[in-house]
């Protein structure tokens, strides 16, 4: 199969998966016990006629199939419905939260990849020795640590000298943009460290294994035979190859990262998608949950697709 066909097929699969996600998303929320509208208007003082009016407004009228069709149509037009909790379109809320989440996740991911790779490199180079054992054990330990717990521990440790919640200090005045940035950074420090640390282990393990595989490749023997220095062998020849699986993992990890974000954002009250999901869960804001779930899953799907294409296109060893 040639490349073009492969890419087309892969995209086709993803579209199919997207449709499955949409369908799952729709029916999952129809499994709710009771009437979703009852959940929205828990106050029984609301007259029934008003309730019926609301039903139409929130798109909860008509047969299931009818609702499903309407849901698909609306979603494709980017309309994710109205939040039960906030009187505003879900898509608007999501966009704002996504930005906040990216502000947290991007540096956290970079940091975790950087540190994880470092740890992995050390382990791979010192393969079989004590430092390998330590690096590997540390990575496994971090991998097994729940983000929320690490967050709690950090919170306990940092109370007193770092802000514990939110993204900015509300009610503060800042002299400059710089001071504002500093404030953001202080708020970000703990959640970012938490996320980086729990993600780090995986990268370290993958980096180690990948690098060990690469180091035994012929081109590494050639690189050595070329009389290149160790540093040059590592950075110029081994790492560009070894880092490929790490990059793929980073893309595939998006889903896991979101899970981590839910935990850290909840613990540190960071106003991102993760906390949105948590709050929406507590308040049973189903349109928001539905929208957030769709966006999260689509992002993961896209990342998955891109990682796959990227990997298969760049690595000649993969057959189609």
């Amino acid at each position: 199969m040639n490349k073009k066909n492969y890419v087309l097929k892969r995209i086709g699969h993803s579209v199919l998966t997207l449709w499955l996600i949409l369908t799952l998303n729709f029916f999952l929320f129809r499994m709710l016990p009771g009437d979703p509208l009852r959940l929205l208007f828990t106050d029984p003082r609301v007259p029934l006629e008003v309730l019926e009016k609301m039903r139409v407004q929130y798109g909860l009228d008509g047969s299931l199939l009818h609702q499903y069709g309407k849901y698909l149509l609306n979603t494709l037009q980017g309309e994710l419905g109205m939040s039960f909790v906030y009187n505003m379109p879900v898509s608007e809320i999501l966009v704002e939260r996504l930005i906040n989440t990216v502000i947290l996740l991007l540096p956290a991911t970079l940091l975790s990849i950087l540190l994880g790779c470092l740890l992995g490199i050390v382990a791979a180079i010192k393969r079989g020795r004590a430092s390998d054992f330590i690096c590997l054990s540390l990575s496994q330990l971090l991998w097994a640590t729940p983000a929320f717990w690490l967050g709690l521990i950090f919170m306990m440790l940092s109370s007193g000298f770092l802000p514990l919640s939110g993204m900015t200090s509300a009610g503060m005045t800042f002299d400059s943009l710089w001071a504002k940035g500093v404030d953001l950074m202080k708020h970000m420090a703990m959640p970012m460290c938490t996320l980086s640390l729990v993600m780090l282990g995986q990268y370290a393990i993958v980096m180690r294994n990948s690098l060990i595989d690469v180091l035994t490749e012929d081109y590494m023997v050639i690189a050595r035979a070329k009389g290149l220095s160790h540093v040059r062998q590592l950075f110029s020849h081994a790492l560009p190859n070894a880092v490929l699986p790490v990059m793929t993992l980073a893309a595939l990890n998006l889903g896991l990262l979101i899970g981590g974000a839910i935990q850290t954002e909840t613990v540190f009250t960071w106003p991102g998608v993760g906390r949105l999901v948590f709050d929406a869960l507590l308040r049973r804001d189903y349109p928001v949950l539905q929208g957030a779930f769709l966006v999260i899953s689509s992002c993961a799907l896209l990342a998955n697709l891109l990682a796959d294409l990227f990997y298969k296109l760049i690595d000649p060893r993969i057959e189609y």
Partner: protein
Amino acid sequence: MTGVFRLKVFPILKQINKKGMAGMIILAVLVILAVLAPVIAPGDPREMAGVDEIMLPPGWDHWLGTDEVGRDILTLVLYGTRISLLVGFSCAAISIFIGSVIGLAAGYFGGRVDDLLMRLTDLFVVIPRLPLVLITVAVLGPSLVNTIFVIGMLIWAGTARIIRVQTMSIKKRLFVERARSLGAGHLHIIRRHILPNVMPLVFANTVLVIATSIYLESTVSFLGLGDPTHISWGMILHYAFVSVALTYGAYWYVIPPGVMIVLTVLSFTMCGYALDEVLNPRLRRRK
């Protein structure tokens, strides 16, 4: 299904690395703790003391202190072992069953069946796990059975993929062809030829799935979607968080359950990797 478990236990044990052994010992201890919890725990997890005994730091009467209603934390943690292990094993059983059936069917029948099942598997691989579990538990309502059911139902995809690949490679081998030519039914071939070869992998995978389940359950419980009538480690941490243990500086309330989660997940993972190394031919070369 006799003959499926043709795992030779002792030769495998001999090959397991040191970390795997350490993991196994920890696990054995945990299982013993869980079983003997009522005997060794210093108190009753439901027993609450008066106002003057709440949030006590560790001391002689309460080795790990007390919580905000005066329960002994050591007791809670010991009983938590039961729930966490129960969740781990039950989730793994469900997920391994589904994963095996789908993996076997996809790998064995191939073609359209494979295509269809793999799309389904893709779906569950791609969807971020925690949000899906959280939302589904929220939709079904918080209870232990629901949590187990949901986690089990949602994490089988990895297992299915592994088993599919293994089944395909075994199917290609000659003896299956020969067995089929003798007119054996599909079920017979799967049972007699494929299952015994897939089982070791399933076994190693199960251990890893248990670790994932425990991890997920603790997160779900911590986020307040657990079953408050059953104390798991995640639940203890949830109580700690909502009862403001951090403000109180109650480190004794926060640290022990977390350590237990880490320890358990870690030892299951180490065992899993060690077993995988022994049982999975693909990984042997990395040793």
